[in-house]
């Protein structure tokens, strides 16, 4: 599942995404309401007009949404102009079918051509809307990628890690080798094109490598509790969601303390949702927050780009601890 659909060349939205479906329903509903407002007057109330219009529009809308969800992957394989053509053809066919086999409401309410025109108009407006929205979001995407490169890893972490490796070279060359390998894996991911979703298992592996580097520096001060027995390792998630959050947890939760602190990570699946929960000790007093907010904003934005309204990220601060809770829809990695 990619988000290239939002690239500048224009692409259809994902008709299986709940957020997209919601937008379609809301926009069509809004247009119906506007039409009903115009037609209502002394003889007929707004409510009556709206009910009449809905009896007409809703069956077509419902059938269209189902048809598009069914044709979704096929539509996305087509080039944009052809996909638009195919989409319009599907819409006209759906309208015709609903008209011919539809409810009694259609009889005596104009000819089929009028319904075709109505359908084409509404569909056109929606295509235009999603195209504009895609364009609006794509600069955000490149911005997010830039940030992924610049703000992801704190320079502080890089230099301290290299320093730690240097300290190992004389005493424990094997360990030094291993840390450098972890470090290079980490940077490989950081510098990759991170627009594609990746399996959760890879993200967990990366997080563990990151934490093992930090462990070397911080020793017993850093304690990690993993609760991932129920984690769906085949779930797809945007890359670099877990690692930056852990980096925040270390920077704000562990480094400012002399005494040991625990970072706990819990990942599990609940029906169609994957839940990722992080908790770290946190003391408010005189700490910097800037980097934290940037990383969170970045992750929030990328979750929105990938999953629209289906994903969420929440943070809570309670006495002495800081929690992040991410919910994303469960999507399985395709078995190669």
């Amino acid at each position, binding site marked *: 599942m990619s988000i290239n659909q939002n690239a500048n060349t224009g692409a259809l939205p994902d008709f299986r995404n709940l957020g997209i479906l919601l937008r379609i329903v809301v926009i069509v509903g809004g247009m119906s309401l506007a039409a009903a407002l115009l037609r209502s007057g002394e003889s007929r109330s707004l409510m009556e007009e709206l009910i009449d219009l809905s009896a007409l529009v809703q069956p077509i809308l419902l059938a269209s949404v189902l048809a598009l969800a069914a044709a979704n992957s096929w539509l996305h394989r087509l080039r944009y102009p052809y996909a638009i053509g195919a989409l319009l053809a599907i819409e006209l066919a759906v309208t015709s079918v609903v008209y011919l086999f539809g409810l009694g409401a259609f009889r005596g309410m104009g000819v089929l051509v009028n319904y075709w025109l109505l359908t084409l108009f509404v569909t056109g407006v929606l295509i235009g809307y999603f195209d504009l929205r895609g364009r609006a979001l794509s600069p955000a995407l490149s911005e997010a990628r830039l940030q992924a490169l610049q703000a992801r890893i*704190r*320079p*502080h972490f*890089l*230099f*301290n890690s*290299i*320093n*730690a490796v*240097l*300290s*190992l070279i*004389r*005493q424990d060359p094997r360990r030094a080798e291993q840390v450098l390998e972890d470090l290079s894996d980490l940077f490989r991911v950081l510098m990759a094109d991170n627009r594609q979703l990746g399996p959760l298992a890879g993200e967990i592996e990366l997080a563990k490598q990151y934490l093992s580097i930090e462990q*070397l*520096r*911080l*020793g017993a001060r850093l304690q990690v509790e993993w609760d991932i027995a129920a984690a769906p390792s085949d779930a797809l998630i945007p890359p670099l969601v877990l690692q930056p959050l852990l980096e925040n947890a270390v920077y704000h939760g562990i*480094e*400012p*303390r*002399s005494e040991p602190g625990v970072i706990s990570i819990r990942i599990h699946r609940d029906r169609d949702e994957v839940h990722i929960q992080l908790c770290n000790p946190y003391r408010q007093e*005189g700490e910097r927050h800037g980097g934290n907010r940037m990383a969170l904003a970045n992750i929030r934005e990328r979750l929105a780009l990938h999953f629209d309204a289906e994903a969420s990220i929440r943070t809570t601060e309670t006495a002495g601890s800081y929690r992040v809770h991410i919910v994303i829809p469960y999507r399985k990695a395709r078995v190669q």
Partner: protein
Amino acid sequence: MTANPPLRVLIVDDEAPARNRVRDLLADCALQMPLEIAGEAENGRSALAMLPECGADVVLLDIRMPEMDGLEVAQHLQKLDEPPAVIFTTAYDAYALKAFEVHAVDYLLKPIRLGRLFEALSHVRTVTPLRLDVLRELKREARTHLSVNERGRIHLIPVAAIAFLKAELKYVTVRTAEREFLIEESLAKLEQEFLGRFVRVHRNCLVAKEAIESFERATGDDGEGHWVVVMKNIAEKFPVSRRQQHIVREFGKIL
């Protein structure tokens, strides 16, 4: 040239690998110059506790450490009768580095290069000592402790334990629940540094908000009524000046 006694170096860093690395490098330097390791500390407080007994001539001081950062440790060090030279070490700190350059403060970037360390150590005896005002300027956040020199040692006073600060001639009296100390600082600067923690009740007095028990009406010598601050755990009461009357009202709503 006379033979110098060996240079004694104190290593201060919260990360064990970083201390190991410095120790290795110092061993390399020791091949070319008389050098001894005076000790190692993993935080500012224990570093200050080791002085002056460990007899360090120079402190290699990490800047980012938990609880008390290196810039603050350096300030407290200046209270010693003969403060050691300080060479800061840091992995990355854009703000501090710029300021170090401006004020010619000695620093080493991590990972530390042998050559740079050697150079810094060989110049350390001739380098101009750190100036307190420069250090104050370098440290943007409020200190966690105030410090006094007691019989040659540094005594730290946690800011959280201070009940009030009172200006008297050229000193400021620092009062905790147990004791009182005299420090040579300006009350106005202290007020600025610890904004939010203390409230000015009178021209010469800052009181910790947390230490305020209540306010009382009292009658002054002139027979006029005025407010006084009643402190928790401390018998002393302070008059609230006419200009600061508003804090009495604000106290009800948490200062």
